[in-house]
C-alpha cells in the first residue's frame, strides 16, 4: 500500500525528514506520534505526494471554505467525481442525492443541525468534524489525517476516530493523544527530529512507553 525507502525532505535548506523507511500494508491503522515539529505533518504530506490516488485527507488547518455551508464543504470531497456543471448547479441548488448521503454522514458526527450553516459560524471543534465529514464523503482506500481530533472533546473523539477507522481500510493518523492512538490504531510510529525512533504494534506498548516521545 505504502512503500517509502530512504526518504529525505528538506524545507528551506533545513532537513525535516531523515532517511525514512516505512512500509504500510493494506488494512493497517497507523498512528504517528511525536511532539510538534517532529515531522508528522511532513511525513503525511510526503505520503500524500506519493500516493494521492484514492486518498482522503484531513489537513491540520481543515482547509474549509468559511463562506460555504457545511453541506457544500463536505460535498467538496467529491468535486472531481462529477462534472463541473453538476457542481456549479449544486452551489445554486443542492442536488438531492449527495444531500441525502451527506445528511447521513453529518448525523453520524452529530452535525445534522448545521447542514446549511456557513462553516465560518461554527466552533473549532465543529469545523474539525466538518473536515472529517468531508473525508468520509470523499472515501477511498487510504486516509491521511493530521490531528483529526485535536479540537473535539473526549467523547466525540471516540466517535470521530471510530467513523474514520470503519470507513477507510488503511489509515495513517498524526496524533498527540497517546491513549486514543493505542485504542484505535494497531501500529504506532514514533517520530523525533524527523527520524523514526519507534515502530511497534500497539498491543506491545503501554501509554507510558510513549510518554518519552513527548518529553522535552
Amino acid at each position, binding site marked *: 500500500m505504502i512503500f517509502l525507502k530512504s526518504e529525505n525532505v528538506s524545507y528551506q535548506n533545513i532537513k525535516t525528514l531523515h532517511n525514512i523507511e516505512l512500509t504500510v500494508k493494506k488494512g493497517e491503522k497507523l498512528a504517528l506520534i511525536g511532539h510538534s515539529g517532529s515531522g508528522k505533518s511532513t511525513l503525511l*504530506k510526503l505520503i*500524500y*505526494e506519493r500516493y*494521492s490516488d484514492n*486518498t482522503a*485527507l484531513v*489537513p491540520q488547518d481543515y*482547509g474549509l*471554505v*468559511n*463562506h*460555504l*455551508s457545511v*453541506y*457544500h464543504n463536505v460535498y*467538496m470531497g467529491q*468535486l*472531481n467525481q462529477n462534472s*463541473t456543471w453538476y*457542481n*456549479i448547479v449544486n*452551489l445554486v*441548488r*443542492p442536488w438531492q442525492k449527495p*444531500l*441525502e448521503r451527506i*445528511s447521513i454522514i453529518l448525523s453520524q458526527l452529530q452535525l*445534522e443541525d448545521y*447542514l*446549511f450553516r*456557513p462553516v465560518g459560524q461554527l466552533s473549532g471543534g465543529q469545523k474539525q468534524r466538518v473536515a472529517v465529514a468531508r473525508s468520509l464523503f470523499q472515501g477511498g482506500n487510504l486516509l491521511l489525517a493530521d490531528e483529526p481530533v485535536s479540537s473535539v472533546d473526549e467523547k466525540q473523539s471516540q466517535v470521530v476516530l471510530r467513523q474514520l477507522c470503519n470507513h477507510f481500510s488503511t489509515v495513517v493518523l498524526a496524533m498527540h493523544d497517546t491513549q486514543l492512538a493505542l485504542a484505535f490504531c494497531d501500529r504506532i510510529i514514533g517520530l523525533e527530529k524527523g527520524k523514526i525512533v519507534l515502530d511497534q504494534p500497539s498491543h506491545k506498548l503501554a501509554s507510558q512507553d510513549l510518554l518519552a516521545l513527548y518529553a522535552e
Partner: protein
Amino acid sequence: MPSKPYKHSAAWNVSWVFIFIAVGSLFVADIEISTFEPWGELSRFFLAIFSPDWTHYKDIGDAILQTLAFAILGVVFGCVVGFALALVFHWRLVRTICALVRAVHELFWALIFLQIFGLHPLTGLLAIGLPYAATFAKIYAEILEEGDKSALQAVDPKTSVISVFFYARLPDLWVHFKTYTLYRLECALRSSTVLGFVGLPTVGYLLSSAFLEGNYTEVWGLLLLFYLIIATIRYWLRPKLLPFYILVSPFIIANDSEISSENMVRFFTEDIIPTPIRNGEGLVELGQWFNELFLTQALPGIANTLILTQIALVITAILTLLFFPLISSHFFKQTGQTMGHTFLVIVRSTPEYILAYILLQLWGPSMLPAIIALAMHNGAIIGHLIGRYSNEITLRIDTVKGGNRYFYELLPRLYGQFLAFLFYRWEIILRESAILGILGIATLGFYIDSAIQDLRLDKAIILIVITALLNVVVDSISRRLRSRLRLKTAVECS
C-alpha cells in the same frame, strides 16, 4: 432529511437584486450601434497601433509636459489642503463640504472654472486640486483614524501637539500617506489628460482633435506615450526629483491669459443667479422655472444616469470575475500572470472617458460605448485588486482545478471583498456616468454641458448640484449596504 430548505447568503440575494435592476434597465436603455460600418472602423482603429505617428512631436511633447505639470500641481495642492482638512475632519461641516466637493467630477469643476477664469492655468489646477483635496481629506482622516495609536498614548501629555504628531504618529503612518498619494498621482495623470477634452492644453486636447480628423495613427502615438508614462511612473517620480518638478511645473502651465475680475464678479452675481430672480420676477415664476428645469432636464438626466450606472455596475462585476483569474497564481503560471498584468494595466490606465470617446466615434451615440468603457476600466481595476487578494489564499494540497477551484475554493472566499470593492466604486461609476453625458449620451452631464453651451449657467449650476446630491445619496446607500453585509474595503480602491 433536512427540514429546512437551503438558504442563500445575504450577499447572494443582494447580488440578484442588482442584476434584476440592471436587466430591467437594459430594456429601457438605448444600446444600439448606429454607425454604418462599426466593426470595420474598429479594426481600422486597432490596426493603426502598428504605425503610431509622432510627426507633431513638438506639440505632443508640450501637451505631455502640460499633462504632467497639471497633475503634479493638482496633487500637491490637493494633498496640502486635504491634509489640513483631515486634521479637522471630525467637524461635521468639513465632512459635508468635502462630500459635496468630491461628488462633483473634475470635468464639471473644469467647466465651472472655465467660466470664471477662462483658459487661465488656475482652471486646470483647481479642477484637479479641489476634488482631490476633498478626497485626500477623507482618506488621510481614515489613515489617521485607523493608524496605531499606542505610541501616542505613551507620550508625556505635556508634549506639544506638533511634536507628538511628528514623533508619535507620522513615522508609522508615513508609508500609508505615501502609497495613497502616489496612487492618486496616477489618477491625476488620467484626470489631467481628460481635461484636454474641454479645452485645456493637455494630451486629451490633441487626442480629440486627432480623433475628429480620423487620424488614428496619431491617436495611437499619443496613447502609447501615455501608457509609457503611467507604466514608468516609479522610475521618473523620485522623491529627490519632486521639488524640481514642483518648481518647474508652474512655468510649464503658465500662459498669457489673464483672469478678468469682471468675469469673476459677473459669474457670481449674475450668471449663476436663476433667471427669474435676476429679472426680478416673483416666487411663482421661480417655482415654474425650477419645475420646468427639473421635469425636462434633471429628471430624464437622473433616470439615464442611474440606468447607465446600474448596467455598467453589473457588467463591471461580470468583467471583474472574468479578469481576476488572469493575474491569479491559482490559475496561471508566472508568464501567464505577467501577460494578465500587462493586459489589466493597459485597460485600467486608459481613462474611461477616452475609452468611451473612442467607442462612441466608432459605434455612434448610444449607451453601449459608455457601458463598455465604464465596465472595462472599472472591471480591470477591481479585477487587479481581487486577483492580488486571491494570491494570498493558500489552498489545501488535494485541491481541485479549473472551474471547480474557481467556484468552490476561490469565489466564496473572495466574494465579500469583491462586493466591497464593487460597492465602493458604485459611486465612482455614477460620477463617471454623469460625466459621459458630455459625449452626447443623455445623462446629467449632457444637460449640464448643453446648459453651459447655451450660456445658461444658472441651470448648469443647479444640475451640477443635483448630480452631486445624487452621488451623496448613492454613496450613503452603498455605505449602508457595506455595513449591513459586513464588508470591508482597503483604502486604495478609490
